[in-house]
């Protein structure tokens, strides 16, 4: 199979944009992605897009143009962006199309997400008694991980500190002011051991990517960034996921483990070959655990890695170079595509103050969400 390329990228700044709907932010991102590769909406042969709570992506044709193109709506929790990209990639790989769009957007109200039990196949009492919060899942998962693998609260704080420092240099980030380690360490707890600087917030934003077949990318003269692999996976038996009233005693692997393995296998490279990574950091602990779940280090090694600065922009494996979800917030439908957007920026060398030095050649992104879905994308230059 010949290569598939990302030829255009566009983003609407994340955070809060009062008076602008999620859909409008999605439209903004699409126009930006088209402008980035000097194409028109009329050139798009198909599209995949989605949002979790801001409406149907395909209604955007009203504003972008009634060209009759097939436009598939994707609704896949936090993996919505990853799944859109997978759909877009697969459609071109099938040989049916040469040029298409993957996009996502969202706009969430302030405060924690408020899922309804029945949407997740759970009984009402589970939500009524206060046990159905995503924050609790992440807190209990990292609590046990810290005990088993010797991760300290200081390391949680360092991850948050890095996110806000990196966010300073990302035009699309929401939180762009550094927060010192002491302030982070002394902040009020939200769900122990995680405090208010260690959780990302539901937010707003939109991202769009234009994908092209090798033939089309050559025609356009835009063969800089190639997709080496895309893999999405749901949960295997024995995994620990959001909204789980019970777990099997026999523990198993995670959706991230199997998505990561599949993506590396398809790309024909391994974790040591990756130059920059964007890993799902719903909270500080998630970034730490996902370093191991994606195969970049062994369980427990994060403590030394992070203390030594290995995941800093100047480190051996820069992680979340635009500040990740912690600095950008999490508009569900757009979040996974933001990671890919950031990786394209890094591979193009246009990261400015957050550019990874020495011209990175490979970039990895990983998104994770309820009820146990992971999507991994590996890009190469």
């Amino acid at each position, binding site marked *: 199979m010949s290569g598939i390329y990302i030829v255009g990228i566009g983003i609407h700044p994340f955070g809060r944009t009062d008076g602008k709907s999620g859909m409008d932010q999605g439209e903004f991102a699409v126009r930006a992605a088209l402008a980035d590769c000097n194409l028109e909406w009329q050139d798009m042969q198909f599209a995949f897009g989605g949002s979790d709570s801001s409406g149907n992506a395909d209604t955007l044709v009203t504003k972008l143009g009634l060209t009759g193109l097939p436009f598939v709506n994707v609704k896949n929790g936090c993996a919505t962006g990853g799944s859109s990209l997978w759909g877009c990639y697969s459609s071109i790989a099938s040989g049916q199309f040469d040029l298409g769009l993957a996009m996502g957007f969202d706009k969430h109200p302030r405060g924690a997400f408020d899922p*309804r039990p029945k949407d997740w196949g759970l*009984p*009402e009492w589970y939500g009524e008694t206060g046990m159905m919060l995503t924050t609790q899942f992440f807190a209990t998962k990292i609590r046990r991980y810290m005990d088993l693998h010797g991760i300290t609260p200081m390391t949680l704080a360092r991850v948050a500190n890095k996110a806000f420092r990196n966010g300073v240099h990302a035009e699309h980030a929401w939180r762009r002011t550094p927060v010192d380690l002491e302030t982070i360490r002394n902040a009020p707890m939200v*769900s122990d051991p995680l405090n208010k600087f260690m959780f990302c917030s539901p937010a707003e934003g939109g991202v769009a990517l234009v994908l092209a077949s090798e033939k089309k990318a050559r025609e356009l003269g835009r063969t800089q960034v190639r997709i080496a692999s895309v893999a999405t996976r749901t949960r295997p038996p024995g995994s620990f996921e959001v909204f789980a*009233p*019970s777990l099997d*005693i026999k523990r198993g692997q995670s959706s991230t483990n199997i998505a990561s393995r599949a993506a590396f296998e398809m790309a024909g490279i391994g974790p040591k070959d990756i130059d920059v990574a964007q890993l799902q950091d719903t909270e500080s602990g998630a970034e730490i655990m996902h370093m191991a779940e994606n195969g970049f280090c062994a369980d427990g090694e994060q403590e030394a890695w992070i203390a030594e600065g290995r995941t800093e922009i100047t480190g051996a494996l820069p992680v979340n170079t635009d500040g990740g979800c912690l600095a950008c917030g999490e508009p569900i439908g757009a979040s996974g595509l933001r990671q890919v957007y950031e990786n394209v920026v890094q591979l193009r060398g246009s990261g400015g103050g957050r550019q990874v030095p020495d011209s990175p050649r490979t970039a990895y992104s990983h998104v994770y969400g309820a009820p146990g879905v992971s999507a991994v994308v590996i890009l190469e230059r």
Partner: protein
Amino acid sequence: MNQRPISPHVFADGADPYLLGGKHRSTGRLVFPLPGDAANYEPCRLPSSGKLWSYTIQRFRPKTPPYIGPEAFEPFALGYVELPNALIVESRLTDVDFDKLQIGMPMKLIIVPFCTAADGATLTTYAFKPI
């Protein structure tokens, strides 16, 4: 006293309370809570004690809906308890100082008052407390 469980078929109250799990009729896999699907799951009594598997403290009042706890919010502990040879179940944790919580500590099931229903009845739920 006028009280009832927050939902039927979740736990059995009384001197020796227990959680009601489901055992898959063909694979034998245990789950909690008991699924409504009686054709595939046979009800089973889960062990009433175990060890703390992980925990956290809920520091803010969860959004309503779905939460129906008292308006006046007090932070509470919750976590997962490993019931030997059965399952790891999620539960509220009670009768313990937050800073005394420790993975591996022995815990046992109790039934506790949770909130007051519209008809004035006290709704009960399950929790685990240190042994």
